């Protein structure tokens, strides 16, 4: 017989947990759900638009009754559970239903706080929590009742007030403090918000303490501490929520403010788990849905007895859902010691933006009137990005950054359905919106999986996030360091750290130590970990061919028809008649259809059959050429101009330096491809200022530039420093590459890496810390011993990976 799982609380967190559970362990449990409300599960956060008349109740249903029936789940809708018998493992409902469980999940949410004032139980006094409350408000409006008083000027109160006003009532918002939404806004943004709500017709009573609700049969008015009385036909209390813990507490389960759970969402009774607003985790309770999604995922993992994931708490941000008013808030928006505030005020446009910054990191944000960059600031906040490089223009938004790649300014909401959002995969807005609503997607990952939007280069991620936010109508988002891939909860940085600290030298060791969820990883994590291993332990960690992408496994670039391209190395772009003859001979002999000069000053032989690769390489090797690594996350090419040897403007021997740099760095593996160039004078014919490392020669020495790239997001380099000699240029180059190899995340090019850690940091490590630079350079050279073995020669000899190039058998 299957084990029995009972869920108490048919709401957002509990049901999300069941959905996650069914996705990973569909047949494990006999499931029964008790819910006090007489409905299926609905999207509570969309009650505000329902009240405002922008959505219907049907539109916000997440799981209708058929959903439960189709999955064989017993739903007791409308039956509140009143008692738990832990000794007998039973739940007892108000109508006397008794149900036994093996495992119990509590997700009882919160109760709205009711002010302890006389008259608080009069008809017409309600809260704002469920469908019943919304129905009562709509009924009051319909019955022609005029005066509504909303007590509480926080998110919920303002959304209720706005809805009631839309339904034709005269609404007064009563707030104890002088600042609206004081948990989210500073004085200035709150004042702007108040003005624009007043313009729409809301009235405010600030600094007013309610002492009594007046009336006999029904509510008639409200009295305040200063004696003022105002008329009221409807009073909505929106003064906060309190985790609903009665059931757990009465059963003797340890509770403080909420039901106390550990990182696996387990309560003090090991048979009982809890998720949602009713829990207290590491001292924290939550009132937004985004943290609940994470809790649900962790809890489902443990209910499925996988037992490997942990919840570590969430950072949240909020947005107000009042159509036409944009408010965003996140983090420590109030500032504090050592904090700077960067502020933009534009009264005429009704825009106010404030970022709280400490040590060049965003700590908090309040946006009013223009929230388009909210998700970007929130990302900078949670990733603790160094904003030094664009601090002066940060308030103009991400679209203002030259390399941002997407115009956050072109509001996605205003885009037509046909507008293409993801250029890589050709996905347009309509398709994404449809997928979000039809398949009930809530996270970026889900949208990626279902539509492929933002699944490739990622530059449209901001747009997709905005669409997601706009479509699910959610004012919250959460953060944590992104896991490396779906096989683990650990981030790139955590994996790297553990590899170094625990001296792990094989993929197996990493999977075991870090408790990977899959037996042998996937195509995302294996190449990343393989790189981290060989970068951390050169010569010691074995390079695992099966964890390399095909291009790096066979040392050539796969083409769309399954043939390969071959690019021999030409040091600094120099070649000779002998090499050219050999290339021409190879092209003839193996009937290579296309010969092309690449953008990096090399010759590309395209359309080589896989079986021919070793023979092609053998011929090229014979003429002295080695692999050009045009296929790898590795040093690609060093592009040079002719420099002082020939050019009338040349200041230094750019070609010679290019050759030396390439001889020093070829063969090294890097987090992503790494390109270099050396120009002989500031005319910069070798385009050194869009390379990962570029040298521009000047009369007095060498300017070193870093962090540039062409491609989708063009980025010019930053000047690292100027040095006087070739030897120094070489040392700085080696040190820079090594720092990048040791600290950037796999598949992160130097440009985004530099933006993440900040130019100041790289300068400090490479320029200011001379000892450190020398050590980095030495480590680079040490690892090159193991890297500078021509992979082509090894394979042409037939001794390495011969199986890669031969069919196993021909039959028939």
């Amino acid at each position, binding site marked *: 017989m299957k084990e029995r799982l009972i869920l108490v609380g048919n709401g957002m967190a509990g049901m999300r947990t069941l959905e996650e559970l069914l996705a990973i362990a569909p047949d494990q449990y006999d499931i029964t759900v008790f819910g006090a409300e007489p409905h299926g599960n609905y999207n509570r956060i969309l009650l505000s638009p329902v009240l405002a008349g922008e959505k219907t109740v049907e539109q916000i249903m997440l799981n209708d009754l058929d959903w439960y029936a189709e999955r064989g789940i017993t739903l007791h809708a409308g039956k509140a559970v009143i008692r738990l018998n832990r000794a007998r493992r039973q739940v007892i409902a108000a109508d006397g239903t008794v149900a036994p469980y093996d495992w119990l999940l509590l997700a009882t949410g919160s109760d709205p706080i009711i002010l302890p004032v006389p008259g608080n139980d009069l008809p017409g006094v309600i809260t704002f929590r469920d469908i019943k409350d919304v129905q009562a408000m709509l009924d009051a409006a319909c019955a022609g009742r005029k005066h509504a008083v909303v007590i509480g000027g926080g998110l919920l109160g303002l959304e209720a007030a706005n809805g009631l006003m839309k339904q034709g009532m005269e609404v007064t918002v009563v707030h104890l403090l002088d600042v609206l939404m004081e948990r989210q806004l500073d004085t200035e943004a709150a004042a702007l918000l108040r003005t624009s709500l007043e313009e729409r017709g809301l009235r405010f009573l600030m600094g007013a303490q309610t002492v009594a609700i007046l009336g006999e049969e029904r509510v008639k008015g409200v009295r305040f501490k200063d004696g003022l009385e105002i008329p009221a036909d409807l009073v909505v209390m929106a003064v906060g929520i309190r985790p609903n813990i009665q059931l757990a507490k009465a059963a003797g389960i340890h509770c403080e403010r909420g039901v106390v759970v550990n990182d696996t969402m387990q309560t003090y009774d090991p048979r009982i788990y809890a998720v949602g607003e009713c829990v207290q985790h590491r001292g924290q309770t939550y009132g937004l849905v985004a943290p609940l999604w994470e809790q649900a995922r962790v809890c489902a993992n443990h209910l499925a007895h996988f037992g490997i994931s942990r919840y570590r708490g969430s950072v949240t941000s909020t947005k107000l859902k009042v159509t036409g008013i944009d408010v965003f808030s996140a983090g420590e928006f109030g500032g504090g010691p050592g904090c700077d505030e960067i502020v933009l005020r534009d009264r005429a446009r009704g825009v106010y933006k404030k970022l709280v910054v400490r040590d060049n990191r965003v700590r908090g944000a309040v946006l009013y009137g223009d929230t388009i960059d909210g998700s970007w600031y929130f990302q900078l906040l949670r990733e603790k990005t160094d904003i030094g490089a664009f601090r002066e223009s940060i308030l103009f938004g991400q679209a203002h950054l030259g390399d941002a790649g997407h115009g956050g300014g072109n509001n996605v909401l205003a885009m037509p359905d046909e507008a293409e959002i993801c250029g890589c995969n050709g996905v347009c807005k309509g398709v994404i919106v449809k997928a979000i609503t039809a398949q009930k997607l809530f996270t970026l990952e889900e949208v990626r999986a279902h539509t492929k939007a933002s699944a490739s280069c990622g530059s449209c991620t901001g747009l997709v996030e905005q669409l997601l936010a706009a479509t699910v109508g959610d004012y919250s988002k959460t953060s944590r360091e992104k896991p490396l891939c779906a096989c683990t909860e650990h981030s790139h940085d955590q994996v790297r750290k553990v590899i170094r600290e625990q001296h792990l030298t094989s993929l197996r060791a990493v999977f075991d130590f870090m408790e990977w969820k899959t037996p042998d990883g*996937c195509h995302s994590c294996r190449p990343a970990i393989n790189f981290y291993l060989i970068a951390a332990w050169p010569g010691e960690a074995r390079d695992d061919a099966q964890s390399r992408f095909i291009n790096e496994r066979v040392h050539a670039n796969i083409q769309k028809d399954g043939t390969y391209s071959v690019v021999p190395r030409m040091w600094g772009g120099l070649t000779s008649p002998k090499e050219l003859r050999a290339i021409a001979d190879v092209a003839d002999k193996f009937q290579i259809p296309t010969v092309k000069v690449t953008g990096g000053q090399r010759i590309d032989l395209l359309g080589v059959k896989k079986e021919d690769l070793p023979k092609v390489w053998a011929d090229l090797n014979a003429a002295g050429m080695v692999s050009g690594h045009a296929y790898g996350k590795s040093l690609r090419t060093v592009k040079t101009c002719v420099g002082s040897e020939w050019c009338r403007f040349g200041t230094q021997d750019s070609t010679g330096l290019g050759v030396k740099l390439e001889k020093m760095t070829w063969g090294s593996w890097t987090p992503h491809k790494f390109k270099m160039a050396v120009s002989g004078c500031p005319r910069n014919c070798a385009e050194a200022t869009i390379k990962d490392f570029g040298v521009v020669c000047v009369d007095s020495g060498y300017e070193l530039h870093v962090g540039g790239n062409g491609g989708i997001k063009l980025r010019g380099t930053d000047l690292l420093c100027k040095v006087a000699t070739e030897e120094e240029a070489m040392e700085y180059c080696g040190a820079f590459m090594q720092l990048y190899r040791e600290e950037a995340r796999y598949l992160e090019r130097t440009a985004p890496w530099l933006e993440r850690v900040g130019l100041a940091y790289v300068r400090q490590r490479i320029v200011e810390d001379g000892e450190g630079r020398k050590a980095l350079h030495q480590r680079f050279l040490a690892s090159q011993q193991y890297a500078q073995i021509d992979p082509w020669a090894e394979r042409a000899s037939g001794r390495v990976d011969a199986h890669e190039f031969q069919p196993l058998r021909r039959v028939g």
Partner: protein
Amino acid sequence: MYDWHEIGALDDVPRLGSRVVHTPHGGVAIFRTADDRIFALRDRCPHKGGPLSQGIVHGHRITCPLHNWVLELESGQAVAPDVGCATRYPVRVENGRLWLGLNDVVSLAAVT
């Protein structure tokens, strides 16, 4: 019925790797997983014909090298949300030798 062909030894295929058998009907990719299970699929991705044999094997799955579709080795089915299927072929391991079963009907279907 299947026509069984001996195609080589288990150890000719690297763990978490793949080799190709050329047949009159096109390439068949032979995969070996970490737990030494052997699977055979037509060497053409249902997406845009990528050579599956060149992909990355993980668990009982293969990721295509061209655009990262993931297919179940057991069934040949693409993993949701992608939809598609690569033809399966039966394989047997006997005394360390590999046998591939080609069925005229199946393999003819595979070419068209």
